[in-house]
């Protein structure tokens, strides 16, 4: 009996040791997402799985609450994570800070980091340039077209277009930066910019009731086209935001394709978010599997941009796309 027990014990110890060894071989990736595991997140996980590389992806959802970031950083260090994936401007800034924070222990400086869906990583000083982040442990992806292109799209669509509306949230760094940039470039493009803050004076998450009020204001100021800019708040409240715009006769141009596909924004030119996730996975695999130093990798750009037009909205607003658009655009009817 004893011998049986001893044999079983030996077997159990062997099993545990094997499992531990196997777990030690598998890389640990921690994804810190701002709005849950959405398309980018799914694309990333799918690409890692498809690669066959032994890695576990653990997701933390910040639920648009920046105060949860320190906990996420602590978890990354405790795991310890082999690589951290950060999502969005707010989340990324919270996890790795700016180029000035490379020696700040409050941020992750020792674990490789790949950032995704940061509207302007260079304007926010998260990274130095497309050639490299300028930080040894950081690389990332870039998935937006320049703001001027977003204005140009509207001009192509509607030759009479000369006034652009913008709602921004100054609590979101990316939203504020986009607003500043548009204020600079709009006059150079011959466009009048009507930029309204969603909920001025409110230092936390804006009150969603303000969306309808601002939309009515924009309509009164003669705005027919509205640009989403970069805002997790508006993105998260996409349905209400886009629906209100249509009700006010305003067409929305969005850098976020889901706002057109799933809600009531009329037009977007954007990369497919799943593809952005794939690109981030490629970066992660270069680091974990191929041994690349993150700082040596370029910031990769998304390549599969597409025009997407919501034909239902175009019909409601009686603003059908020009014939040439229809030859290349992906039409959505919802």
């Amino acid at each position, binding site marked *: 009996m004893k011998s049986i027990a001893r044999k079983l014990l030996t077997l159990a110890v062997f099993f545990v040791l094997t499992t531990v060894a196997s777990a030690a071989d598998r890389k640990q990736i921690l994804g810190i997402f701002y709005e849950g595991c959405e398309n980018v997140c799914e694309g990333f996980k799918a690409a890692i799985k498809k690669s066959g590389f032994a890695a576990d992806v653990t997701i933390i959802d910040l639920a648009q609450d920046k105060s949860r970031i320190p906990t996420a950083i602590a978890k990354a260090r405790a795991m310890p994570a082999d690589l951290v994936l950060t999502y969005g401007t707010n989340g990324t800034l919270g996890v790795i800070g700016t180029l000035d924070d490379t020696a700040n222990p409050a941020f992750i400086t020792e674990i490789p980091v790949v950032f995704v869906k940061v509207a302007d990583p260079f304007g926010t000083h998260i990274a130095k340039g497309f050639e490299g982040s300028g930080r040894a442990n950081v690389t990332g992806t870039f998935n937006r077209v320049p703001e001027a292109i977003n204005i140009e799209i509207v001009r192509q669509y509607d030759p009479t277009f000369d006034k652009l509306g913008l709602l921004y949230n100054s609590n979101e760094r990316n939203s504020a930066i986009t607003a500043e940039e548009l204020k600079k470039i709009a006059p150079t493009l011959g466009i009048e910019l009507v930029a309204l803050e969603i909920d001025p004076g409110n230092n936390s998450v804006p009150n969603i009731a303000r969306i309808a009020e601002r939309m009515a204001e924009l309509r009164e100021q003669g705005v027919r086209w509205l640009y989403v800019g970069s805002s997790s708040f508006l993105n998260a409240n996409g349905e209400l935001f886009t629906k209100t715009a249509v009700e006010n006769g305003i067409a929305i141009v969005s850098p976020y394709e889901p706002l057109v596909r799933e809600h009531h924004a009329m037009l977007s030119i954007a*990369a497919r978010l799943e593809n952005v996730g794939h690109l981030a996975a490629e970066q992660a695999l270069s680091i974990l599997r191929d041994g690349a130093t993150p700082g040596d990798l370029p910031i990769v750009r998304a390549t599969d941009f597409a025009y997407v037009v919501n034909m239902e909205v175009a019909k409601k607003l009686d603003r059908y796309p020009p014939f040439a658009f229809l030859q290349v655009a992906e039409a959505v009817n919802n």
Partner: protein
Amino acid sequence: MLLRSWITFSVVIALLQAVVGLLSVLQHNAVLSDLLRQRISVIAQTTATSFKPIIDLGLPISMIRNGDAIVARALETDDEVKAVHALNPTGIIVYSTDASRPKEVPREVLQAMQLSKEVKWSTETGEQIYSGFNVVGRDGATSGAVLVAYPKDRLEAASQAIMRKVVRNALVIWAAFSALSYVLLSLLLGAPQRRLARLEGVARGEPDAQIGVNGNMKTSGSGAFWRDLFGPQIRQLDANLADARRQYDAATRELGAFELPAAKDWQAESDDAVVATTPTLETEVASNPSRSLARQIASRLAPLAAVLMVSSALVLGMITLGNVNRSIEPELSARTNLIATVVGEDVQRALATGVPLDSLVSAESFFADMLKQLPEIAYVAVATGRVVLEVGERIDPYLAPPRERKGVRSHPIMHNGEEIAYVVIDVDPAFISKKFLDVFLDMGVVVVVAVLIAFEIMVLMSSRSLTAALDRLQRLAAMQAAGDFSKRAIVGARTAIDRAAQVLIERAEGLSAQFAAAWQGPGGSDVAGGSDAGRTRLAALQARYCLSLNGPATLRFSYFTDLRLALFLFAAADELPLSFMPLYTRAAHNPFPWLSETVLISLPLAGYLLAIVLVSPFARPLARWLGPRRLLILAAAPTIAAHLWLYLASSVPEIVASRTMLGVGYAFVTLACQDYVIDNTPRDERDRSLGMFSTVLFGGIFCGTALGGVLADRLGQSNVFLLSATFVLISALLIFSLVADTASRGDGTRAKAARPPLLAALRNWHFAALVFGIAIPGNVCLQAFISYLVALTLDSLGASPADIGRTLMVYFLAIALVGPLAGRVAERGISVSAVALSGGFLCGISLLTAAIRPSEITIFLAVLGSGVGSGMVRGAQVSLSMSIAETELKHLGADPVLGALRTIERFASIAGLLLVAAVAGLYGYAVAIAVVAALALGGALLFGLSVLGKPAAPARQQAP
């Protein structure tokens, strides 16, 4: 004679039919390939248009998500399309319908894309036809291109079909014309043939029955015209032969007085006669007098040959034209159908997104942009019974050709499985007419080129097989009739004419042997007769009958006709690449990126011209030292090497170096030929022969220019150099086997090139005005406009190499036609200065028109105008310079003055070419043309001022 002439005619007509047939097929293939490319380009264009909205935003073509789906649509419009690719500007394939996902396009396709100045471009490889259309962003930069690959099966099938028809027709036409030529030749040569057949007997001393003993012949009754066609000449020949016989009999008799046993058996007519002496070689200038029988027969045969050749070529040309038109017609309507299909599909795609037909936004401007690249479409509409959208102007249904109106409603627009509208498309009948006119003109060029080539072959063949033999006989008979037995010749024994000549040669040899035997006497030590009186008598006989102890000298006849075909082929070989040379250079690797492209591509031409300038002064001394024949053969070697080098060349320096070598070869060959003509023509016929030399040279240039374009189009540009090398090789072989080896005239010392008195000549105001006002502008016009700007401008206007070649050859045709006319005008007392001045102004004004409004038609008119102008200037310029040289610059001498004129104008043409190339690079082709125009007009003005108040220069015989 009749049989030989008929064989010659039949062979030449067969060659002519072969050339016309071959060129027609090539031309057909070029036209069909062009139409196919244009049709495929519709697919490339519509696909490229789909990418444009995104490219206009400034995004690279590679960043478009549904790029593969967009290129895949193209396959639906034509199921024969092999593959469609979207390329980035460096030629990397970013989207493709090809399952093997090729990464790059073939090298020649990339080159076609990079070299094209147009959005639309195309090329052809061994297996496929490619049509590309660039995607150009709003900023004008090319952001990529759509490339459609199409199999060549259709082209090859059509090519084979037309080839079969051409071969069948050509055989029938050849048989008919061969028979016709036999009938006509029988009429023309039958009687002379019968009489010439008796020449052998006459030569042997038998009386000619028809002439009778008193030399009269029956010249009346039926058929008298034909019977007595060459009567006087034949009677003259008969008389000479009879006199020769008499002279021979007298000489034999007189030499018989010294007869020795050893020489007793000497019979001139004996077949086994052996000449004991070593004959000396001597090459004689063949005078070929214009009244001679050979010339008379040639001058009768030439028009007959011309009529038969032109008409047989025209018959084949016209029949083939019909076949070509029938072959390309379906392709023209296929393109129209494709455009209608594409319009319908675009509309269907828009409707599928949910836009109602009546709410299509900016569809008119979309289709208007599309039609800008489709010149044959006058009107496009989408109709449902009423017109929903329309672009362009409707063609009156009564004007539109019926075939274009067929199936107007054959392109329905479907939505949700129902036909809700249809496409209406109107083809511009003027465009279609122009296409057919182009084909007609191309065929015309083919016929002209083939006839010119055939004519040169005919001249050579009839000279070799007929007239040369008669000429030999005539010359020997005339000499012997005058008692001159000093010459023999190398002749065959196949014809009666040759056998008659052989009789004369044998007599000359026999008399020489008889004389030698008599001179040596018994034992070989003394004169037969053994006295001084005998020696004196023998010496008198020797002087009287021109006898020699060494036997008669061998005459080798040399004619310009021996050289004609060689010169013609050489000139053609030199000009074959004219229409594509600038484009060929542009495509080559350029190791000097700092050099402007326009200057760069002028360098090969500049090198070529520089070589001509530097080498020309040495040509005449070298020709005198080596003899023209050796110089011609020696010059052919570097020319062949240079053409082969051009074939292999991949970089600009290689092209410049090889073109410079060609310049050396060209200078030596043309000048050596000119010297040969001068040396081998009696003085009184020199101008006529030099005129013929110019005609042959320009005929070759004309054919080369005309052929180069179509050959480059079908064979590929580099292969044309192989053809050029072959032409030069044939030319060298012809010279080697046909041209007499005239002895070098070197006096043992190497000849030196004289330096022309440039400054001394230019101090004369009239000479300077002629040089700067007429000669330099004329040369700059040729080198900078014709040889350089025309090809580049037409290429930038979208013309094919064939179009360019066709336009360029008009220049040489105009010179060839107007040159002699201008000479005749001058002979009628009109001032030569006025002719030169008018030519200069005409040149300038026609160029100015092209500079103000460059288009295919104005460039064509400018080329024609400058050709006519240059034709007027060309002869007048030499005439004027000779007048000045003989009067005001008499102390310098005529040759040096002419040398100075040539040297200055050639140097100036190089400088002018480089200047014009630089201007073209900085300000565009139109400004560069304007500069040449200004030079021509300014020069004419300067020259006009110089002749004011000066007595009109007397008209001179024109020199080349």
